[in-house]
């Protein structure tokens, strides 16, 4: 694999690092994650936060990472970006960005990948802005830190770029000299998006971007993300617990439970032909405004404690259709239909569901 930096002029927006990959005949996926596994070392023992997570992401595609609190979705993304806390360990897996395994890069290289290739909008991002610096300043700083390798960037060009970014996210450029507290919640989220786009990444990971926002502002932000995705050709990974948002925004969906992948398929398949019992129950627990006649289903029980995981399927204790094998054997993730992966014994072995149990 050859590394060939090319500078395309002084305009920061067009500075690019281009590396040619030797055998690049077919369009490989932009991002390929294989068997990513993460552990945390805590006082109570080893916490198996994420195990064997695999997925792919093409250019311009959006992936929804869905699951409830504690299922490992944020940890997966932090591991991908190598931003785990000191007690976290990535114990297995590959993260291939355009063929390069990010997990095996030296730290300095990873610094360059972060933000200029993949950027992340943190959960609670609205409160992550530095209150004592202007918004424009903070965006400029992220460009200065991550966007350039060698070469000078004059202030004028930097200023232009900041204006351009603010404009892209719908903030009047006159507001670039204001402080975060002068921005509303929705505007701060837009500022965070602008910051994430500052170095023209290929992949943007948005962790719960609209939680805590009003429904109208949420609609505005999602609309903005979709627009940016189209115009800039971004690949987006949307992490959320909100199934409805995923249905509106994403092409493919990864459902996580207890640190593992439960189901991974196109959005249409997930919503109209869900196969994993957890997915089906989750969909039934989610209100649909257009169909208010149904009853909301609750999933009894609690998510597994990641210190003391059962030997079998992690969802088994709460599963309405479990069988004996589910207690002893952890179901592997299998592609049961083209592009549709499920980790469930009943599905992969096409076992019949016992007539006395039921799934919504």
């Amino acid at each position, binding site marked *: 694999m050859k590394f060939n930096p090319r500078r395309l002029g002084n305009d920061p927006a067009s500075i690019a690092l281009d590396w040619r990959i030797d055998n690049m005949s077919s369009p490989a996926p932009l991002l390929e994650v294989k068997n990513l596994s993460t552990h945390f070392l805590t006082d109570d023992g080893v916490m198996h936060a994420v195990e064997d997570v695999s997925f792919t992401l093409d250019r311009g595609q959006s992936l929804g990472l869905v699951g*409830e*609190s504690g299922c490992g979705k944020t940890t997966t993304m932090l591991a991908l970006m190598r931003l785990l806390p000191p007690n976290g360990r990535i114990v297995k897996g590959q993260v291939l960005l355009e063929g390069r395994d990010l997990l095996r890069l030296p730290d300095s290289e990873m610094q360059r990948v972060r933000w200029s290739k993949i950027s992340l909008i943190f959960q609670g991002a609205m409160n992550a802005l530095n209150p004592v610096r202007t918004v424009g300043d903070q965006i400029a700083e992220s460009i200065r830190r991550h966007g350039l390798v060698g070469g000078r960037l004059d202030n004028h060009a930097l200023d232009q770029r900041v204006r351009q970014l603010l404009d892209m996210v719908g903030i009047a450029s006159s507001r670039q000299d204001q402080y975060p507290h002068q921005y*509303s919640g*929705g*505007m701060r989220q837009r500022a965070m998006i602008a910051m994430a786009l500052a170095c023209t990444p290929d992949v943007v990971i948005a962790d719960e971007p609209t939680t805590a926002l*009003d*429904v*109208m*502002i*949420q*609609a*505005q932000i*999602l*609309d903005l993300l979709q627009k940016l995705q189209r115009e800039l050709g971004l690949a987006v990974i949307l992490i959320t*617990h*909100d*199934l*409805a*948002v*995923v*249905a*509106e925004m994403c092409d493919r969906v990864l459902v996580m439970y207890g640190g593992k992948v439960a189901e991974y398929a196109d*959005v*249409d398949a997930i*919503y*109209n032909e869900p196969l994993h019992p957890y997915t089906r*129950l*989750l*969909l039934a*627990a*989610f*209100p*649909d*405004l*257009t169909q*208010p006649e*149904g*009853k*909301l*289903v*609750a*999933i*009894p029980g*609690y*998510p597994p404690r990641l210190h003391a995981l059962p030997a079998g399927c992690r969802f088994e204790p709460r599963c309405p259709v479990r069988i004996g094998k589910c207690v002893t054997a952890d179901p592997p993730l299998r592609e049961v239909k083209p592009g549709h992966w499920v980790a469930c014994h009943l599905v992969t072995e096409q076992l019949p569901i016992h007539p006395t149990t039921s799934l919504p």
Partner: protein
Amino acid sequence: MNPTPVLEITRLRKHFPISRGLLASFRRRSAHSVHAVDDISFQVQPGEILALVGESGCGKTTTAKLLMGLEQPSGGTIHFCGQDVATFDLKQMRRQIQMVFQDPYESLNPRMTVFEIVAEPLNVHHLARSREDRIDRVKRALKDAGLKPAESYFNRLPHELSGGQRQRVVIAAALVLEPTVLLADEPVSMLDVSIRAEILNLLTELRQTRGISVLFITHDLGTVAYFADRIAVMYLGRIVEIGPARDVLSNPQHPYTKALLSVVPVPNPRLRRERIILQGETPNPIDLPGGCRFHPRCPVAIEQCRQIDPPYVELSNSHRAACLLIESVL
């Protein structure tokens, strides 16, 4: 003959004075106060679930505080079962209406056991006749809130419980005084999706088992569809539309309601619908626009909207909305 509503609010107002600097108060004569709640009226019938829906800044939280006696109204009246609240003393009022809060992690004192938390209202109001009586009432409240077996929860501390269990403890503490109205402020928005249904179903059940009415405050229209008998939509301190849930959801009249319903995400990827995304944000209640409060953001505003504050138009079946563009059916 309609039964007496358990809760009746008539032209309720709450204005917060703004303290302005000395010079500023000389310079401008405009707004001296924030009209957080401005002339709202509604009723809650026995055993009914009324949802108060709106975005932040619409006044729903202030309304909740007024109902709980945590703030005093600037105008208007509140009646519980026909009696004016002004004649109650504060303690009496708090036995009529109890509140369930949004954050199950913050609503419980981390150092109190579940028993102490649920018994606290009894102690404050000196209601328990004896130790056994207190234990009995706490047990009943925990049972009604779905925490069984009740005794096993007595000595647990909040951090040992899950979010859903904590919220049930809050509900039990609200039930122990046997109120007629339960005021739930975003009771499920901080819970996992799979747990929400449990709590919502519990609130619905309480209607049956205890005859309690529920005033449900939220910004999540999706949940409201399943759950509420009637819906009231608030914007900038006013109720812009109110009516039976089915009617408001299937036949919204006010442009704001229509916009809100069109942007609520729906878990159906095949659904294509026209989304009315309003520009900008809810304006600051300090700078209220003249005429209809919604007109600056309204996609269908006409000239008169800028001058006239629209009155309510009665539609069928106790469904009414305040907009100049609605034609009355009656």
